[in-house]
Structures are given as structure tokens and as C-alpha cells.
């Protein structure tokens, strides 16, 4: 095979072959023979047997949804969550505003102020889920792994705003103390064994 030929061959596999299709009969006798052949070939009974076999095997694939749920991937991007620091339990969000800036559907709004300890504090934080397209950019851009996506996909409600009160998104402090805060493994998350790959900043220039 010459160099260019291998790129011209679009067949994914060499096992492809053309199905052998007989020519359609044109005369009456040919059509009659085809009808008789098809009638007594018993293909209809093959179909009947296939569905009956499936009924007898009773291999049911239904997930009875509200009672049973399929496991979803850890990278699933559903309603957002705000995380806390593991050690101190304070909120991770530092109010940098990157998520607000990068949000392509312009649905994140935050207000910050300087608190009494001269630290930046987030006073208002809201996500308009009516506009959010769950692209995951906010989670990817967040330098503190503070805003992430969660697995809560059942967001039918009278008001979408019910899901995005800052207090609701924030991990409850008792859950954090019980060690139940789940780190997000999707966009922006630290990769496994990140500690081993960290290099000391060279101080001597």
C-alpha cells in the first residue's frame, strides 16, 4: 500500500462487505415466485419467536426512576455547589470574581466588600439557573475549587431560584465535619497524585 493509499481507504474494518441483494423480479412469474418464497420462509415466525424469547427471559432493563436511580459520573455537571475548606470549615470562595467574568451566559452575580478584618468577603452570590447552560467554565476557572458542579439534577421547582441560594449551595458545616463533602472531579479539579508532582519554587535565580 503506497503512502497516500492508506489515507484514501475509509473502511474502518476490512470485515465490511456488500450485502448480496437479488435483483427485483420484473415479470409476473418472478414476482409470484418471490411471494411464495417469502410466504413459506417463515420469517414472521422468527419475529414472533424473538419477542417471545425476550418475554420468557424476562431480562427487564427498566429503571423505576423515582425509586431507583442510575449512578451518575463524578464529573456530571448539575446544580452548582459551594465548597468549604477542609481544615477550618470557612468558605473557600475568596470573591475574586473570575466565575462572574467567565460566565458565557452571564448568569453569575456577586457582590463583595471589605470586612472588619480587612479581608475580602462575599456579601451576595447568586446564579440565575434560568440562564445557566451548565458549561462548567465557572468550576474550571475557580482558583480555589470553591464553586463546582454537583450531582443534583432534579431541578424541577416553582422557582429555579430555589436551588441557588448561596446558603443552599454551600456545604453544610455539619456535613463537612462528618467528612461528607465531595470533591468535584470534573473541570478544574486537581488530578490524582497532584502532591507528588508539585515542585518547589526555585528560590535561587
Amino acid at each position, binding site marked *: 500500500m503506497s503512502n497516500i493509499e492508506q489515507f484514501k481507504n475509509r473502511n474502518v474494518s476490512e470485515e465490511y462487505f456488500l450485502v448480496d441483494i437479488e435483483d427485483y423480479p420484473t415479470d409476473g412469474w418472478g414476482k409470484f415466485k418471490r411471494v411464495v418464497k417469502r410466504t413459506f420462509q417463515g420469517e*414472521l415466525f422468527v*419475529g*414472533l419467536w424473538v419477542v417471545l424469547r425476550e*418475554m420468557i427471559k424476562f431480562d*427487564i432493563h*427498566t429503571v423505576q426512576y423515582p425509586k431507583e436511580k442510575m449512578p451518575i459520573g463524578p464529573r456530571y455537571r448539575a446544580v452548582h455547589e459551594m465548597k468549604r475548606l477542609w481544615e477550618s470549615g470557612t468558605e473557600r470562595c475568596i470573591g475574586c470574581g473570575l466565575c462572574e467574568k467567565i460566565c458565557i451566559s452571564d448568569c453569575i452575580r456577586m457582590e463583595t466588600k471589605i470586612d472588619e478584618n480587612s479581608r475580602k468577603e462575599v456579601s451576595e452570590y447568586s446564579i440565575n439557573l434560568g440562564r445557566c447552560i451548565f458549561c462548567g467554565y465557572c468550576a474550571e476557572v475557580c482558583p480555589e475549587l470553591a464553586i463546582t458542579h454537583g450531582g443534583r439534577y432534579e431541578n424541577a421547582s416553582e422557582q429555579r431560584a430555589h436551588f441557588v441560594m448561596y446558603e443552599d449551595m454551600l456545604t453544610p458545616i455539619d456535613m463537612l465535619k462528618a467528612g461528607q463533602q465531595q470533591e468535584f472531579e470534573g473541570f478544574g479539579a486537581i488530578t490524582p497524585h497532584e502532591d507528588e508532582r508539585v515542585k518547589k519554587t526555585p528560590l535561587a535565580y
Partner: protein
Amino acid sequence: MDMAYLIETVVKIVVIMLIFSALAGLGTYFERKVLAFMQRRLGPMSVGPYGLLQVAADGIKLFTKEDIIPQNVVAPIFKFAPVITAATAFMAAAAIPFWPQFTVFGYTVHPIVADTEIGLLYVLAVMAIGLYGLLLGGMASANKFSLISAARTGAIFISYEVVTGLSLLAPIMIVGSLSLVDFNNYQAGGVSHWLVWTQPVAFILFWIAAFAETGRTPFHLIANDHEIIDGFGTEYSGMRWGLFFIGEYANMFFISFVIALVFLGGFGDGGLGGALALIAKVSFFFFFFLWTRAAWPDVRPDQLMWLCWKVLMPLAVVNVVVTGLVMMF
């Protein structure tokens, strides 16, 4: 006409109406379950244990829905058409012996409303009138797809009446009677006396035609699913649509009874075993209606017509002629 006979007949009518209305409802449940199992699903599960009360939920829904009469329809005909379908389906039941006669408290009950001499002819005729429900319903709706469906329904029903009649002609010639009770008694001798052994072609033809007559799946062109609408029933809602539905399912049960009585020996010699065998036969034919719906695709209307006029009808005629020749010599 004495009073006891009148009361007995009315009671029989009411019992048959109630049983088969309930069976029509349960038939939808069985259909959904059987189709679901064949497609690896569970079917209705939420209402009641294993979804058994789904029938009641559907009934409440149908009964309490608003009765919508759309603009531009021919209102009187539009309102009356579903009644024709449901009524003719149940009227056909009058001449069907559902069960051998039995004695309760010294009183002999004949589970047939009208044991006429022309039972089979009556059943076929009334079932054929059922066409008018669908035809008029589709024509009265101000909807071109309903109209097309109605025309198609009329064509298919009239065509398959020919096959039904001709295929039953040969068994009628052999038995020499039109009464379904006579048919049953002719085959009372046991399995070897069944008409299906002497009339296998008529059996197959009538079975095929039964699918067209009830509008079940290989010939489900009455409400053409390919058009993503419900054919003649597109404009119908609520209980009027429900009447079409009850009529269709009642028809399935009654035609199953007819097949079992004419070709498969019915209730045999009239004992309990024969009665249970009749129920088993009818259940099988009803199950087969659901089974084919899961397994087979629909055919095109022109293929259906081709099948009727170029294959089934000549076969039926040949069958009648051969039967006549055999009987003559």
C-alpha cells in the same frame, strides 16, 4: 313472551356488558404489560400493585375529561359515531355462546343471549356495521387526515369482509348451519373433530382477516401510526375516544370467541373441561393479537389491498370450490 324469559335475557345482557367492558379495560392493561415484557420494559407499575389499578386511573381520566366538540365538525354525526363502534361490538356478542349451558339451583342457564339460526351471519353483519363508526367519525371530523383514514378504513373493512365471508363459507357448507351452537356441537367429538383439520386454509384466512376486521397491528392502518396521529380518532377526546377503544378491544375478544367456536371446537361436549378449554383458546387468540403487535411491522395500505384481493380472496374461493367438490363426490 313470558316474563321469566325477558328477565333472564336482560340479566344476561347486563352480565355480558359488564364482563366485557371490564375485560376491554383489562385488555389494555394486558396489552401494555405484554408489549412491555417483550420489549424488556416493565410497563405500568405505579398505580396499584404491579400497576393493576392503571385501568381504573385511565377510566377516571377518560370519564372526567372535557367533552370537546371541535369547530367545523358535523356535530351530530361526530357525537354519534363512537356509539356505533361500541354498540355494534357488543351487539355482536348476542349470538355468541360464551360458555356451555350449566345449571344453577335447578335452573338451566344458556349463556347466549339469542340462540338464533343465523348466529354466525348475524355476528359478521353486525361487526361489519362497526365500520360505520370509524367511517362516519373520520368523515365528520374537520380534519383531512381523519378523512383519509376514514376512507382507508372503509376500503380495508369492505375488502376484508369478502375474505371473512368466503373463508367462513366452507365451514358453513360442511356444518350445514349458521348457528354457532351447531358449529360447536358438530365438533363436540373431541380434538380430531375440530374443523381446523378439515379447513386449515379457511382457518388461516379467517384469522388473517380477523386482524384486519379489528384493525390490529399487521393491518393497523385504521389509526395509522405512521402519520403520528390517531387516524379517524384524531379529533376525539375523553370518553368518546374511549368508546372507540372499548369497541376495538371488545371486538378482539368477540372475534377470538368466533375463531375458537368455529374452528377449534369451542367448548366441546359442554363439560367444565371444555368450558375452561374455550377460555384458554380465547386467551391464546387475544394474546396472539398482542404478540403480533410486538413482533410484526405494519404493512402499507396498497400491500394490504394486494394481499386481500390477489392472495386471500382467490385462496378463499379455491377453498370453497375444493370443499364443494369434496363434499359432492
